[in-house]
Every structure is written in structure tokens, then in C-alpha cells.
């Protein structure tokens, strides 16, 4: 009996030693991997400068695909059909470079990349949630500068204002734009809107307010969006600032040099407040209605409203949430408010940045900038190209072709202001919209609170 027990003991001891050895080996393997204790860049990236660039610097021009082999990990916000289109876009590059793209789609880039930076496990190339976070990540040392991109060619091929929006405060290029969205479009149900394309904001309001009857309202607005509630209202205010106070005020506002309590910004909030006062459902409805369902009353019979202000992506929601068909609706660009600033539009775009400086990542980024690459996705639909060399006739539908033309023809295209602001400012702006819609009378305290955040958020 005793003998048997001691045999068991020996067996267990053997197993235990083996297990400890296994644990030690695997933890040894981990510590060899990039350790992300500090905010320092992950150590796995080879010294970037010494790595040979994978593709010739040909941003948007002729792209020489070199056979670099290996693989490149990419994280982006695209899933489903958009993910398929992205993979179709990079397939020719995979073929000529011999490298493999390992793509992961993520619905919450900010959270995924923030935790990735803290733990040191980052993709080589990643979609970035916005210029604000892009700069913060560069300051933390996580994001690598794209010094291999031929900036002059890239800028010449891109609508004005975009290329520079991807730069850090020290002038280094950090993010490139491939996919654009035109903001500040006003959609209508063709069955209910007979006002054509109004030339001015005043004309729009006069026509619309003359056309509504009974309980019908001019606007459909909904600003609920979970943790980002309020953002549809920030688009409103941005469009108004750009058209009412002009691009200079807009830029100063983005840079944190224009106070929120200044007459220009306050006037923009008031113009937005005027639209809210003429919107379907009242303020409680607006703050609790999801942006995706906001336009539903526009397609009901009788229609609850005539117009809906949103970016070009919203048509998917018209079809899926409101049951509208292609051809039921159309849009015009939000008209000028002050004729002095005629032709200004707000836009947004999907940014790409690089966390690990590898030859494959460099080559892929140069490839993504080319018109040939972007044309692949344009033809598949749902993509407005940043590259001017993509011909207009390859767009598969009217809406995207018109959006591309608006983008190319704008006198001044400004990137979404809230996305450019520091994240704390952006978040406070969201919350301020919700508070303002709910209690427009509190405008002064809301704006002075934003001034406090501004003084704080831009400090660094």
C-alpha cells in the first residue's frame, strides 16, 4: 500500500515538473514577444529606417510592385460586404508582391487599438477611427510616420484639405485617405418634396415651411447612437459653421482657437436649434431616436417630415430601416447660408496608418493610394474614391457618382470638425448636442462648459 502511494507521488511529481517546464517555456516565449509595459512602440518592429521600402514611392502615380513576400496584418472597420470589397481591392497586390494580407474587421477600432497599444499586440496596418486619435497615438510613439509616401503626388491626387488632415503637428504624414464620404447632404422623399434644389438656406426654409401641412414638420432628426449619442447633431453644427461663418472660423474652431461661446459658434447652435424646433417629434423624440431610424417618418404616409440631413452612407438605412427603394429618394447638398462662403462642403474619410514599419506594410500603403487599387472597390459599389484619377464613369450608381463629383468640384472641402478635435473635445461636443436639443435655453452654460473642455483638451 505504502509502496503504491509513493509510486503515485513520484508519478505526480514527474507530471508536475513537466507542467512547470511547459509553463516556463511558454512564458519564456511570451516575454520574447513585444512587451508593451510602457507606451513605447512594440519591439517586434524592425528598425524601420533600415528596412528596405517595399514599393517605390509612387503615391497614387505609377506603382512598382516589388516581390517582398511575407505577410501583413491589417485591422479595419469593414466587415461583411465591405470586407469582401477590401479583400478584392488588395488581391492584385497580394499577387504581385507575393505577400499575404491577414485582414480582421472590427466594429470598434478605437477600443481595439487602444488596448492593442497598451498590450503591444498591434496590426502592421490599421484603419484609424479619426485624425484626433491618430495624433494621440503618434505622440505615444505607437503610430509610425509614413515618410516613404511621396506626399506631393498624393496631395495633388486628393481633394483639397484631405492630405494635410493626415499629418501630425510636427508635419509627419501619419494617415492616408482612400475612401471618402460627403457629408451635409439633404435627403428627401421624391413623393413629398417639390422644392427642387434650393440655392440658399433661406430659400430652403421658406419653401419647406410653406409646404408642410398639419402635423408635418420640416426636418427629421435623431441623434441617439449609444455611447456616441449626439454625433448627428455635431454634423449639423459643423455644416452650419462652415456655411455661416466660413472656412477660416471653421479651421480656427477645429484647432481650438475659436471659443465655443464666440458669436459665430453660438449662432451656428442657434441655427441648428431653429431646425430642431421645426423637427418631427419634439426634443424628447430627437434625443431618444437612433440616427438610423431618424428618417423613417419621411417615408411614412402621411409623411412626418420633408427633409433629412445626413452623410452619404445613410441611404442603406433608408432601404433597411424605412423600407424605401432606390429611386424613392434623392438629395441635394446643403445650400449656402452666407453667399460669401459659397461652395464649401464637409467631408469625412477612412484613414489608414501603420503601427509596424515593415516592407510589406510600406508597399501595401503605397498600393492603396493608387487609382488602380481604389477603382476596384469603386466598381463594386459603396466607395467614393479619394483619388481624382479614378474616372467618374466607373461609379456604378448615380448617388455615388454625384457624391464623387461634388467632392471633386467643391471650392473648399473641410474634414469633419469633431473628428479632427481631440477626443475629449469630440466627446464633450456629442454630449453638448444631446443637452442642447433637450434644453435649447441652456445654450450659454452648455457652450461655456465646452470652452472649459477646450481649454483643457488641447493642452496635451
Amino acid at each position, binding site marked *: 500500500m505504502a509502496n503504491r502511494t509513493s509510486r503515485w507521488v513520484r508519478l505526480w511529481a514527474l507530471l508536475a515538473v513537466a507542467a512547470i517546464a511547459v509553463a516556463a517555456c511558454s512564458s519564456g516565449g511570451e516575454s520574447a514577444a513585444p512587451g508593451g509595459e510602457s507606451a513605447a512602440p512594440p519591439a517586434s518592429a524592425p528598425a524601420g529606417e533600415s528596412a528596405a521600402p517595399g514599393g517605390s514611392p509612387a503615391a497614387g502615380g505609377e506603382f512598382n510592385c516589388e516581390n517582398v513576400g511575407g505577410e501583413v496584418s491589417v485591422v479595419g472597420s469593414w466587415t461583411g460586404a465591405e470586407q469582401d470589397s477590401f479583400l478584392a481591392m488588395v488581391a492584385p497586390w497580394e499577387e504581385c508582391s507575393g505577400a499575404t494580407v491577414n485582414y480582421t474587421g472590427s466594429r470598434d477600432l478605437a477600443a481595439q487599438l487602444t488596448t492593442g497599444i497598451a498590450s503591444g499586440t498591434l496590426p502592421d496596418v490599421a484603419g484609424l477611427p479619426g485624425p484626433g486619435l491618430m495624433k494621440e497615438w503618434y505622440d505615444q510613439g505607437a503610430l509610425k510616420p509614413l515618410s516613404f509616401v511621396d506626399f506631393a503626388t498624393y496631395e495633388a491626387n486628393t481633394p483639397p484639405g484631405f492630405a494635410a488632415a493626415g499629418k501630425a503637428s510636427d508635419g509627419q504624414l501619419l494617415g492616408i485617405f482612400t475612401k471618402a464620404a460627403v457629408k451635409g447632404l439633404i435627403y428627401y422623399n421624391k413623393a413629398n418634396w417639390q422644392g427642387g434644389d434650393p440655392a440658399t438656406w433661406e430659400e430652403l426654409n421658406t419653401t419647406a415651411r410653406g409646404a408642410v401641412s398639419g402635423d408635418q414638420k420640416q426636418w427629421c432628426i435623431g441623434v441617439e447612437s449609444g455611447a456616441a449619442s449626439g454625433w448627428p447633431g455635431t454634423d449639423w453644427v459643423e455644416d452650419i459653421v462652415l456655411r455661416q461663418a466660413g472656412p477660416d472660423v471653421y479651421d480656427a474652431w477645429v484647432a481650438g482657437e475659436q471659443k465655443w461661446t464666440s458669436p459665430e459658434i453660438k449662432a451656428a447652435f442657434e441655427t441648428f436649434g431653429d431646425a430642431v424646433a421645426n423637427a418631427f417629434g419634439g426634443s*424628447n423624440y430627437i434625443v431618444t431616436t437612433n440616427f438610423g431610424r431618424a428618417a423613417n417618418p419621411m417615408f411614412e404616409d402621411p409623411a412626418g417630415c420633408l427633409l433629412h440631413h445626413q452623410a452619404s452612407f445613410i441611404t442603406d438605412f433608408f432601404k433597411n430601416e424605412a423600407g424605401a427603394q432606390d429611386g424613392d429618394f434623392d438629395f441635394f447638398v446643403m445650400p449656402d447660408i452666407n453667399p460669401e462662403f459659397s461652395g464649401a462642403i464637409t467631408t469625412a474619410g477612412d484613414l489608414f496608418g501603420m503601427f509596424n514599419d515593415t516592407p510589406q506594410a510600406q508597399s501595401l500603403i503605397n498600393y492603396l493610394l493608387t487609382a488602380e487599387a481604389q477603382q476596384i472597390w469603386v466598381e463594386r459599389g459603396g466607395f467614393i474614391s479619394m483619388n481624382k484619377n479614378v474616372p467618374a464613369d466607373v461609379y456604378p450608381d448615380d448617388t455615388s457618382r454625384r457624391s464623387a463629383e461634388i467632392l471633386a468640384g467643391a471650392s473648399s472641402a473641410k474634414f469633419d470638425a469633431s473628428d479632427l478635435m481631440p477626443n*475629449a473635445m469630440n466627446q464633450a461636443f456629442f454630449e453638448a448636442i444631446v443637452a442642447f436639443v433637450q434644453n435649447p435655453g441652456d445654450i450659454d452654460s452648455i457652450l461655456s462648459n465646452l470652452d472649459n473642455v477646450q481649454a483643457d483638451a488641447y493642452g496635451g
Partner: protein
Amino acid sequence: MFDAILENRLLAAILVVIAVPIVLVGYIYLVEFVVGLFRRTTAGRIRPWLWLAPALVFLGVFLVYPTIATVIRSFQNRRGDQFVGLENYQWFFTQNDTLIALRNNVIWVIFLPLLVVGIGLLVAVLVDRVRFEGAAKTVIFLPMAISFVAAGVIWRFMYELDPKVGTLNATLNAVGAEPRAWLVEQPQNNFFLIIVGVWLLTGFAMVILSAGLKGISTELLEAARVDGANEWQVFRRIVFPLLLPTIAVIGTTIIIYALKTFDVVYTMTNGNFNTDVIANSMYQMLFNNGQPGRSAAIAVILFVAIVPVMIVNIRRFQEQEAVR
């Protein structure tokens, strides 16, 4: 080779399931082997420490070290490369938003335990006298199985403005009243959020109080009734005082829940409409605003607020242990 194994999640899971117990058991045998090398008296003295060591190491790495690091971080600036004294704390106590969060937490701390214990006690006493006690208790206990996030999503539908979706507004609609924006109207929206917590936690309080109730001897109650006490007097003078230690333990547990409440607020309003709470502002400060220093300061404030409640809780526990 190990990288390849760790990449295969199934293999990694199996490795963990098998290797962890083996390591633990192996550790015990190792300890006994080492202890066996010493004389009996020495062995008796070092054995408890060696047995305790893994737990102490885990506590140190996962609890003590982060706590100390958080306290240090709360005195540093945003980048964590400079000490700024009490600046982060000063910021907390001078901001309108954070003060509202603090106020809301006070509302939570007062009303959540009051409602949970009150309703839990009422239900426990009442179901004690009905035939279908098991069924009644099951129904009330059921929400305990639901996570706070799921409860938040469920109650968002309950409170939805559209009467076609929102249960409460559908009810109002049926009696001809106007629908209301439950989560928007201030300040009562805080109470509508607290109700979600009450719905989740009442079952927990009820089950424990019910068990306490069963522990009171029937002879005692009979004696009181024979002496002419009515039912209210029996409850007030005998049942309630005997349940008091149990009520205190539940109360303090719920107070801790109320202090660290986060999920319900995050999923339902994200702090909009003046419903923010401290834990949510801590999360936002870290993940949205990138302010680890301030976030750490909020964490420390929350920690300091919870410590006295914990001490009371532990005292109670020790007293009960001593009685046994």
C-alpha cells in the same frame, strides 16, 4: 512551437485546463517535499506560509500592485511622467459633470439598498405565508441570472418612447395618456435607472432574508402570539431585530453595488441627461478622453468611498463568526 500551440485556441484551452491543475497539485507535492526536509517544529511553522504563498502572490500581482499603481498614477499628469500633486483630485471636485456624477451616486447609494432590502424583506415575509412559496420566489429570483448589460438593454425597450416598442408607453397609450421619455426627464430618470438595479438585486436580498426568516424558531413566535402580540408587533419586535444582522450584510453589499454601478448607466444613457455616475465617468475619462491620471483619481475616490462600507461588512462577518 509554443506560439503555434497558443495560436490554436482549442489546444491552448485544453493546455490550460490540464496544465493548471497539474501545476497546482505539483506545487503542493513540491511544498510537502521541501517541508519534509525540515525538522517537525520548523516544518509546522513554514508549512502554512508555503501553502498560502500562491494565493499571496496572486493577490499581490492582481490586487495590491494595481491598487498602489493606481494611487501613484492619480498624482501624475496625463502622460504619467510628472507628479502634479492633487491636481487631478482638484479637477474632480470642481467640474460640473463629475459633481453631478457624484450626486447621482449618492442617490444610488441611498435608494438602491433601501428599495432592494425593503422590497426583498416584504416579499420574503409575505411569501413565507403562501402556498406557492417556491414558485413566487423563483419568479422574483429569476432576473439574478441576467447580466447588468442585458438588463440595461431589456429596460431600454421597456422605457422606449415609441409606444409600439416601449412597454411602459404602450400601457400609457392604452389608457389614453401621452407617452413619456422616461430616461430623459430629469431628475426622475435616475430613479428609472435605479429600478433596473432593484429588479436585478431584489431576488438576491429576498433569498437570503427568506433563509434568515426560516432560522427564527417558531416557538419564539408562538410564545409572542400567546402573550397577545399582534402580527405587526411580532414582526416589529421579534422578527425584524433577529433579521437585523442579515439586513446589515445585504445592505452593505448593495451599497457597494450602488457605488460601483456602471453597466446599467453605460448601456442605457451613457451618462447623458444628467445620469452619469462615478464609474462611468472613470471609464470615459480613460477610454474616450485619454486621461489616465484623472481616471486613476476617480478610481481612488471610488475606492476610498467603498473602504468604510467594506470595513463595516467585514466587522459584521467577524461578529457572526465569533457568535458561532
